[in-house]
């Protein structure tokens, strides 16, 4: 069941909401138990058999967590470390089995390590990467002494809560544990319902009106990576880039809105990433909770370990001592590459995901080395125009780097990605520059210039076929991406998320509980419903 479907909107969600607030009349624990049941039903709607896997995984992790928190283990650090190791291994085993074994075997076949008949196919349980990571994080937190007062029902709610079960955000127990323990969370408040529904509709519109209409055409482009000349290839790459943006951003908004309707606040996962001015900034805006998770559980411990060792070896942490190539290598490059490789293969077993991670590793290393060794404080005394120009360049370069990596991310193989990227730099020839039909109409009044641009030289063209993304529809989407405030800024006054957001959007686009906003969002919702029949599954459901 996807959020953008009639079954979800008109059957599942109303039943889940009414049941929740009715159960809350009996007691908070009953309400949360209802939430767990509803979430399991939500998961079962996709494949009932895997509910067993999910339930076993929850029981296993809760048991290990309890053992880690048992008071008699406080002292014996060694036995606790061993227990944590068993717990993490117990989580990774099913993940490897379902997600990576098939790919590993086919690789083994390709280098004749196993016989060609030996095949193994299994469907990937939805959201397994997400709930596996969430629960490993929980075990690490238990190891550090957190999450003591959570019972099994609340723990199950933390893992299964349907708004984020399948595609994140990836939560830590401290994000949501206190809210589940607070009986006030499940009290019916119309404020929560109206804020939640508004946020949800904005996400739904992104998904249904902006992302899904591009799905088909993007599929065509990436299915024939070598067949197009330069500008057409660019159109396909850009179309995928905005499709992914609105798909993921729409999902994140819907998750926030749904959680809010149940009185639960979750952190934002997406903060206008294409407005980033460098790659470090990008990773603090794109899939924020994955970055946070990997930083916390992988990058930080690794970097701390290396730094502590360096200090014991007689180095200090001062700026001077860190500005050497050796220090840069061990303190920055090693942890970054390990983290990004893991981030890559987290998305899947293909080599293109590994390369996507490596590309971002290279980007981040360049970014960090520029910060460390590059010139400082250039352009402090420049004029406003020059400064604005610099910002545009920074955003542009960052976006191009992200786009190149996204082509790798979307392509069916590394070879296909290279074909696409080759096409983008003109290796398959250069075609006429695509412009929207309306721009061409304006040009038509220019007489000879128009003749020159479209005539024998064939410099401009209006892409006619349906199989090529329309330049105007892409331009509209990039306008929304770059020029408009994002949903959390629009809603900032009413703090619908766990993340503190600055309320600095234009007043016209600041949400208010007024009839005007209700009408506008109502119309948007109606338009979404009319387009619902062509919805596609969320791109992040495959991870």
């Amino acid at each position: 069941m996807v959020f953008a479907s009639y079954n979800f909107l008109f059957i599942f969600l109303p039943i889940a909401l009414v049941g929740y607030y009715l159960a809350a009349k009996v007691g908070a624990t009953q309400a949360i138990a209802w939430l767990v049941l509803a979430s399991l039903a939500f998961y079962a709607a996709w494949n009932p058999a895997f509910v067993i896997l999910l339930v076993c995984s929850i029981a296993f992790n809760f048991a290990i967590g309890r053992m880690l928190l048992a008071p008699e283990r406080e002292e014996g650090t060694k036995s606790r470390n061993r227990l944590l190791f068993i717990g993490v291994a117990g989580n990774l085993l099913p993940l490897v089995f379902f997600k990576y074994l098939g790919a590993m075997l086919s690789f083994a076949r390709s280098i004749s390590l196993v016989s060609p008949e030996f095949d193994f196919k299994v469907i990937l349980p939805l959201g397994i990467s997400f709930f596996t990571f969430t629960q490993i994080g929980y075990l690490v937190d238990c190891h550090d002494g957190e999450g003591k007062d959570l019972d099994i029902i609340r723990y199950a709610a933390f893992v299964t809560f349907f708004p984020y079960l399948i595609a994140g955000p990836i939560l830590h127990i401290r994000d949501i544990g206190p809210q589940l323990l607070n009986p006030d969370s499940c009290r019916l408040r119309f404020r929560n319902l109206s804020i939640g529904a508004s946020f949800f509709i904005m996400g739904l519109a992104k998904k249904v009106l902006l992302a899904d209409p591009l799905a088909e055409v993007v599929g065509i482009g990436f299915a024939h990576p070598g067949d197009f000349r330069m500008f057409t290839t660019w159109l396909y790459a850009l179309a995928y880039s905005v499709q992914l943006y609105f798909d993921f951003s729409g999902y994140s908004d819907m998750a926030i809105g749904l959680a809010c309707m149940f009185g639960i606040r979750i952190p934002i996962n997406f903060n206008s990433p294409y407005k980033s001015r460098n790659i470090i900034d990008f990773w603090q805006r794109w899939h924020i909770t994955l970055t946070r998770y990997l930083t916390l559980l992988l990058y930080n411990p690794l970097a701390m370990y290396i730094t502590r060792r360096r200090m014991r070896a007689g180095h200090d942490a001062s700026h001077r001592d860190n500005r050497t190539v050796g220090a840069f290598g061990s303190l920055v490059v090693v942890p970054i590459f390990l983290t990004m490789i893991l981030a890559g293969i987290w998305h899947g077993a293909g080599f293109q995901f590994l390369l996507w991670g490596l590309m971002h590793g290279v980007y981040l290393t360049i970014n960090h080395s520029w910060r460390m060794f590059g010139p400082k404080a250039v352009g402090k005394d420049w004029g406003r125009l020059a400064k604005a120009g610099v910002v545009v360049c920074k955003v542009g370069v960052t976006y191009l780097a992200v786009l190149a990596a996204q082509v790798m991310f979307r392509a069916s193989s590394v070879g296909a990605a290279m074909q696409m990227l080759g096409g983008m730099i003109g290796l398959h020839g250069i075609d006429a520059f695509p412009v929207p039909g309306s721009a061409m109409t304006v040009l038509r009044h220019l007489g000879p210039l128009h003749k020159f641009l479209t005539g024998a030289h064939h410099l401009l063209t209006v892409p006619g076929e349906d199989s090529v993304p329309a330049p105007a529809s892409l331009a509209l989407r990039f306008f929304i991406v770059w020029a408009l405030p994002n949903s959390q800024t629009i809603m900032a006054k009413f703090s619908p998320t766990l993340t503190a957001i600055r309320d600095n959007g234009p007043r016209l686009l600041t949400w208010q509980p007024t009839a005007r906003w209700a009408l506008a969002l109502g119309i948007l919702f109606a338009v979404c419903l009319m387009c619902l029949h062509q919805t596609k599954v969320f791109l992040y459901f495959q991870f």
Partner: protein
Amino acid sequence: MESPEIMEELTGIFRDVLNDESLKLTPELTAADVPQWDSFNHINIVAATEVHFGIKFKTAELEQLRNVGEFVKLIDSKQKLKHR
């Protein structure tokens, strides 16, 4: 050691790591306010603080810190535990 003293010593560590002699720490200061204070320098600040005060932080403790003031409080509580 009292909080103002911790703050003063912490200022020295921050200035050294971030290479900014004019940096002034306040309890409300966050990483978002200081451009050089990124994930890399954060690790260095934490490691230098550990060495300076002779304490060790846990991953979960560090994640919950919202600003410099809370960092000072954490150092304070760690030191009290040590001397008990």
